[in-house]
């Protein structure tokens, strides 16, 4: 009966596979400038232009002064410098773009010109740069030389104990700033107090902010708990600004208010916010962002949190969206603003897009590469998941090591992590007790110290935090009370650290552009200015810093590989004996297969990469040969450790002309005496996934070859594991042990193997 005709497939199955990938959870939007979906250019963007009458801008980017909206008005008054504008606006966008990537044009010269450029001009200039050029220009133009990073520290329960532990952990990993916020708005004060205490463990100088309602955030700052603020948002259209319940003047007033309290401040803006708020005026994302950034310089804030931020996910749905985020960050640093460069709200479910998003920033450096990095687990992030989170923090540490790039973080070993967490929890518990705010039990504390996330804790719940917050306010507790409580309870180091941070306010040094604290010193764009002028200049990893970055955990060395092998020796001695019988001769026995073992086999090395004891592997091969009607003769090769040559040398000694090459790491080959070295009969190249059954079947096939049969090859199935990544470092170290035992011209020796059964 003939096969019934099948209906033709309506789909290539690969699309079904792709449907299952995390990438397909991401949405992508068509380019549509009329609806605000255009990254770099919209037909409704104005042409850059600027004219002056009597010292005031009369036309800017095509708009007459009488028609300026509030944003235009503010930029025209405070950003544009008439003494530079004619010169700067007369330069072609392409010329300016080329200057941005020219290492021979000093940063200061470009910063000066920016004071005379309108938003449309700035946007047009950076539009000429490719993604690579944007990253390079960013590296050259960012204000501070030394890169840094910021962490989110929040949890799903607003648990103060966990906040303290996680803040201390973030400090331990090297974050320059910590940002917290609450699940429940009322909990801001307990969050602030807890993070302030936690961040004082280990070293001083990690700046801290508590993002909350504007008036409350300022009050918390005045009580001394926080040292910076960044959630002062600005927008690129007037209607978005008004819906955000502010104006450029109200935000500029707030900026002055923060400075008047000695608190570092930056604004926030990012592509996509106007789109999300419904008032994009059909302009491109980049043009609106250029307006936001000029406005921020005009307001006199030292810096910006910029690069999409909450709008990053919608920006990344548009063609060129990620490139646009880089372009707006470049405008920010060109305008001489500190840049906390986004890499914040997670814009994708694809880990590949995550890695691609972060790389340019990691290698270019940034004042604060992430704003922030979710140092806690995704579900604990009260800002929503970040681009990178607690889950992926080690991946980031490894990226720093891979690219020898300073991403602002340092690895921390397990015992240190536990130590700082315990210290933070103890310190906060002492403060809570001392100030009559709470008395955490031993069980609460223990659960928090060990917890990866709030699912693991038996500690405070949101209502407890709310009561604690009310008590802090009712008792008018300030940072000075906390410093005293720490000192009284024996946490003097932490008391000093916290006092040092608050003391920064008196001189105001850390209000200058791009200021962070490193090694107890304020560094900023003034005393650590980016001086990049080509290779050998700008930020370079010092030897010490490189040592910190490369010190990730669980690194293989030759010694620890040898030690691990040595530990197996005792077990193998009880299972197998190798007796050297003297030089091996070619045999006439047509039923034998010679198994050529490698120089260190059973001498220095005792198991395959898959973890099979060599006693079991030799037994499996031998059993397979016996099942197939052949016999095994073992010969130790001493002139080579290469699988092919082991196999070919064995075949040439074998009466059947068939040999098996077997390395201690488990790679095995069937060879025939008349073949070229690398043209074997069968090869097991993937030792890590080769089972004992496979070796037995290889023995059977070798037996079949002795009779001139053509058996079906044994295929070791792979599921595409990155075997090289998993094993090659160990393989190389192991193989070096084999090759170190090679002697030129040494003759093979027969080895009598006896397998020792379990003792009765």
């Amino acid at each position: 009966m003939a096969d019934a005709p099948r209906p033709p497939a309506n789909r290539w199955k690969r699309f079904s596979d792709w449907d299952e990938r995390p990438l397909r959870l991401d949405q992508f939007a068509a380019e549509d400038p009329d609806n605000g979906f255009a990254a770099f250019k919209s037909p409704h963007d104005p042409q850059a232009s600027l004219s002056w009458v009597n010292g005031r801008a009369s036309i800017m980017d095509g708009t007459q002064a009488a028609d300026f909206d509030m944003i235009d008005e503010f930029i025209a008054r405070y950003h544009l410098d008439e003494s530079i504008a004619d010169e700067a606006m007369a330069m072609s966008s392409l010329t300016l773009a080329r200057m941005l990537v020219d290492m021979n044009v000093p940063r200061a010269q470009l910063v000066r010109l920016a004071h005379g450029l309108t938003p449309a001009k700035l946007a047009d200039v950076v539009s000429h740069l490719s993604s690579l050029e944007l990253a390079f220009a960013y590296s050259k133009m960012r204000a501070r030389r030394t890169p840094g990073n910021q962490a989110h520290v929040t949890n799903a329960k607003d648990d103060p104990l966990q906040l303290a532990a996680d803040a201390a952990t973030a400090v331990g990993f090297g974050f320059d700033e910590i940002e917290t916020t609450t699940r429940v708005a009322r909990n801001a004060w307990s969050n602030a107090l807890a993070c302030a205490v936690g961040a004082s463990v280990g070293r001083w100088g990690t700046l801290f902010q508590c993002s909350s309602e504007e008036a409350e955030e300022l009050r918390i700052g005045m009580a001394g708990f926080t040292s910076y603020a960044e959630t002062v948002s600005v927008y690129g259209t007037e209607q978005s600004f008004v819906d955000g319940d502010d104006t450029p003047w109200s935000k500029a007033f707030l900026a002055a208010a923060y400075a008047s309290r000695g608190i570092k401040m930056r604004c926030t803006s990012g592509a996509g916010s106007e789109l999300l708020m419904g008032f994009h005026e059909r302009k491109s994302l980049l043009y609106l962002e250029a307006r936001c950034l000029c406005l921020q310089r005009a307001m006199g804030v030292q810096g910006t949190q910029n690069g999409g931020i909450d709008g990053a996910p919608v920006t990344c749905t548009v063609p060129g969206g990620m490139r646009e985020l880089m372009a707006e960050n470049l405008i920010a640093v060109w305008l001489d603003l500190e840049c906390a460069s986004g890499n914040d709200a997670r814009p994708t479910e694809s880990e590949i897009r995550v890695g691609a998003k972060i790389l340019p920033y990691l290698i270019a450096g940034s004042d604060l590469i992430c704003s922030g990095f979710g140092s806690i687990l995704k579900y604990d992030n009260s800002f929503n998941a970040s681009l990178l989170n607690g889950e992926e923090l080690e991946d980031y540490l490894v990226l720093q090591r891979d690219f020898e790039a300073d991403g602002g973080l340092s690895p921390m070993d397990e015992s240190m992590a536990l130590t700082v967490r315990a210290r933070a929890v103890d310190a906060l518990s002492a403060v809570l007790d001392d100030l009559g705010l709470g008395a955490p039990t031993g069980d609460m504390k223990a659960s928090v110290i060990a917890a990866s996330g709030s699912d693991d804790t038996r500690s405070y719940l949101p209502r407890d935090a709310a009561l604690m917050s009310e008590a802090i306010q009712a008792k008018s507790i300030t940072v000075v009370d906390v410093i005293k409580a720490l000192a009284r309870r024996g946490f003097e180091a932490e008391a000093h650290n916290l006092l040092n941070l608050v003391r920064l306010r008196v001189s105001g040094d850390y209000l200058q552009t791009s200021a962070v604290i490193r090694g107890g010193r304020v560094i900023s764009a003034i005393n650590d200015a980016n001086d990049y002028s080509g290779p050998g200049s700008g930020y370079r990893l010092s030897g010490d810093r490189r040592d910190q970055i490369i010190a990730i955990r669980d690194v293989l060395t030759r010694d620890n590989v040898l030690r691990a092998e040595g530990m197996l020796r005792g077990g193998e001695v009880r299972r197998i004996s190798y007796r050297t019988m003297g030089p091996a001769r070619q045999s006439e026995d047509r039923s034998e297969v010679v198994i050529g073992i490698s120089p260190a086999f059973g001498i220095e090395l005792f198991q395959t990469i898959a973890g099979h004891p060599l006693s079991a592997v030799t037994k499996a091969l031998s059993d397979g040969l016996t099942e197939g009607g052949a016999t095994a003769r073992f010969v130790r090769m001493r002139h080579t450790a290469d699988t092919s040559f082991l196999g070919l040398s064995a075949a040439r000694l074998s009466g059947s002309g068939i040999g098996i090459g077997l390395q201690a790491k488990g790679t095995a080959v069937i060879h025939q005496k008349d073949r070229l070295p690398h043209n074997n009969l069968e090869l097991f190249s993937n030792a890590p996934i080769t089972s004992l059954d496979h070796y037995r079947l290889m023995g059977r096939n070798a037996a079949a070859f002795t009779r001139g049969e053509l058996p079906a090859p044994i295929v070791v199935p792979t599921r595409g594991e990155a075997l090289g990544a998993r094993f090659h470092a160990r393989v190389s170290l192991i193989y070096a042990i084999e090759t170190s035992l090679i002697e030129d011209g040494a003759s093979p020796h027969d080895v009598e193997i006896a397998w020792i059964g379990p003792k009765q």
Partner: protein
Amino acid sequence: MTERTLSVEDYPLAEKRPEIVVGCRGKRLADLTLENVMSGAVTLDDLTITQRALNQQAEIANAASRPTLAANFMRAGEIVDVPQDVIMQTYELLRPGRARTKAELLAAADDLRDRYGATRMAAFIAEAADVYERRGLFKKRY
């Protein structure tokens, strides 16, 4: 004798020029120790910024070619002694639709100038009043 204008070489002041960093109650950085905090000799008031420090930072910002940052520090310096509730009331009044008339904003500006000597900030708020009027912001929003 007038002090010379500060330059970027004087930065950070706490390190390079500690002798000119003085808290609002006359304490110097060296006095701001844990010991003095514990004894009560140093309070939160001693750990605040002063108008003088903000003006010094403005000089440094100007020297570093950051005139807008310097202007913000100068405005900030003027409101160092303005109480928190007045700060928050003024901020609130500057938000869209809070002031129903231009006169309300101008009155707040006058108040800052007359009571606290905040001339720059007063002018800044008066300027906002003009722009708000032209852009129709004096209207009910909720």
